[in-house]
């Protein structure tokens, strides 16, 4: 039938170290030199494994009665035999092998990003970011307009974004072999633009709806944007253990968000909300329908109930409300 199988020996980092073409229905794997595939792993038996075609023609791996046995690539349970049609990976000793039939389907061709496309995007987005920053600086400038006031923040932020991208490019160089700085810069600038937009959106909504909680808790969205940016950076590097990396990033971002939220909640519980109007925009930004003075004052009954509720709860530090100093 001319059946061909490929046996790949993976390196410890997970990439293919050796690939053997086997033009037979059976192959033997082990440390001894009379095998079809020789594995240099002291935890592998001289004759460890037999790979053959079962009755239905599918590939099967079989333990030849070894000390350390046979495991699926991601499994912890030792098996005497392992069908390879679904999961082509097997582990013997400390070595991972993959066995593929010649008919094994491979992923379709990935489109090549045209040369300098990331650089063009990064440049365009950076210009957009600088323009957005400059516009915001100008819109929130209430003192004398000086070059320092307008340009210094731009310089600081640009430096920070470049440094951030540089760190990711370094990681990329380390793991992928390519720095791809333009791609990292593109991701970072996109994320920063999203942050600016999120900030403005929440502040504006907070005013338009007269709903201060929106901007009070806007930082949760900012953390999500940061998480998404890290994810994009990671995907571009494409580490072998993407799931672990993503899990770590999610955990870090969630922890950061949680700590900030806890601080906020604590401050809110102790001091409460500040007696200010919060974020302001020109009157034309109002969306919420207007109330009458009477309706507004009636609605403060709910606020009163809230603080009355709070006064029944004992403040922290026991019953003594007294501030501890005794210096009268």
């Amino acid at each position, binding site marked *: 039938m001319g059946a061909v199988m490929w046996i790949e020996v993976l390196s410890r980092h997970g990439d293919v170290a050796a690939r053997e073409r086997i033009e037979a229905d059976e192959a033997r794997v082990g440390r001894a030199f009379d095998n079809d595939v020789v594995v240099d792993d002291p935890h592998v038996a001289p004759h460890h494994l037999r790979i053959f075609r079962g009755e239905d023609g599918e590939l099967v791996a079989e333990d030849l009665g070894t000390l350390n046995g046979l495991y699926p690539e991601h499994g912890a349970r030792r098996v005497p035999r392992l069908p390879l049609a679904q999961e082509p990976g097997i582990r013997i000793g400390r070595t991972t092998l993959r066995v593929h039939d010649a008919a094994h389907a491979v992923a379709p061709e990935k489109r090549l990003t045209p040369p300098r496309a990331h650089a063009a995007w990064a440049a365009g987005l950076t210009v957009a970011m600088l323009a957005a920053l400059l516009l915001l600086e100008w819109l929130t400038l209430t003192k004398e307009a000086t070059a320092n006031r307008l340009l210094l923040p731009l310089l600081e932020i640009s430096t920070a974004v470049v440094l951030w991208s540089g760190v990711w490019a370094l990681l990329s160089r380390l793991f992928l072999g390519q720095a791809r700085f333009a791609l990292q810069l593109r991701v970072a600038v996109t994320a920063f633009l999203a942050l600016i937009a999120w900030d403005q959106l929440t502040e504006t909504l907070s005013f338009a709806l007269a709903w201060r909680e929106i901007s009070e808790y806007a930082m949760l969205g900012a953390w999500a944007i940061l998480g998404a940016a890290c994810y994009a950076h990671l995907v571009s590097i494409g580490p072998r253990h993407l799931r672990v990396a993503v899990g770590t990033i999610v955990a870090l971002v969630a922890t950061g968000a949680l700590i900030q939220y806890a601080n906020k909640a604590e401050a809110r519980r102790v001091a409460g909300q500040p007696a200010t109007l919060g974020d302001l925009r020109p009157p034309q930004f109002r969306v*919420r329908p207007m109330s009458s003075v009477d309706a507004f004052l009636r609605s403060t009954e*709910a*606020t009163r109930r809230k603080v009355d509720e709070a006064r029944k709860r004992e403040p*922290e530090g026991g019953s003594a409300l007294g501030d501890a100093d005794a210096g*009268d």
Partner: protein
Amino acid sequence: MRRVAFALAAACSACALAASAPPAPQGAPVPALSSTAERVYELARPRILQIRTLLHAAGRQTTIGSGFVVSPDGYAVTNYHVVSRFALDPKTYRLEYLAPDGTSGALQLLAIDVAHDLAVVKIDHARLPYFEFDPRALAGKLPQGERIYAMGNPLDLGFTIVEGTNNGLVGKSYEERILFSGAINPGMSGGPVTDADGRIVGINVAKRVDGEQVGVLVPARFAAALLERAHTGPPLAVDKAKEEVGRQLAAWQAEFYEALQRQGFRAASFGPYRGLESQAPWMSCWAATNGDDLPRQRVSINTTRCSSTTAVYVSDRLLTGGLELRYEYHKSIDLNAFQFSQEIAQHPGGAAYDGGRRLTAQECRDDFLAPSGAGAPALRATWCMRAYREFEGLYNVTIVALTQDRDREALLARLTMQGVSQANAAALGKRFLEAIRWAR
């Protein structure tokens, strides 16, 4: 602003007996001042008490103050703030007196008057001589310029007598207070102030920290009235003192907001806008502008602030009874609408009063308000409040309103009320919000 700072540290002592002191004979040469002070000091000495608040658990003093004996059966007058820790938390603190003869013992708290910062206590030591009240002071007829003598223990440095001048009643004050031109220092609280014959004309209570030799006394008649109440009424139960403080604060604010109403309001102009202003004589108003700031500002801001001169001491770090109306008229010089809104957002409109943990966390409610009639602008408004943990039905309320009719000029108005009931806050708040109108 000029705020009364309470002389909290109170090591008191002092007082003079009046009855036995012979009045200076008519026509006789005025005795040298020093000799009068000497005589008053001598008379006063045996009639004063040191009043200590002790921490139960440690058995040590946490505050000391003064009091003075005013009746043969051992009643003594002091400041409420000298005994406030005990009144609010009798489980943690106890009171003790130290008589000039070295004896000491427990004190019974009989009556308090929070508004006038007075308390009547009783000692179990009936042999002390006592002070009498000056009948001229009770009738409010103490001549301005008369020499009077304040006694106490400033900064716990030792018993002193301070010679000063009676300058009549403090102007612009809601509560009746005597202006004493002499040094009152922390530690003298609760100490007596007498005339040259050693008769009580007032009680040391506070000084103004922004001036020199500006002391504030509680007139003797309030002490006499409280003493009368203590004699006739039932004594204050130890565990009911906090309730009594709450009741007096509630009554105080009810009376204050009624008085405010009685005094009437007027409309004051702020640029093209008008806002509410009280006509009460005890509101102190100040204006400020940023017009002469350098470098030149891009927004002109004119601020008017009217605050009541009221301050009721409740406990450590908790003063209440304040009322403030503040207006800032902002007009853009060369800012666009967006920049102008950012400029206003940077103006919280004044620091919030801080009551620490004795108040709950602040809760706020935001809204847009439709014009309250022809000639009124739309408003962006915020109502913020904190409740007094120890006293039911009392709140600190702040209302902030910003006009929304124009995008390059606006009136930022702020009303702050301390220790107010929800009903009174809402009533004044309604007046305040509806009074914001166009001037034309």
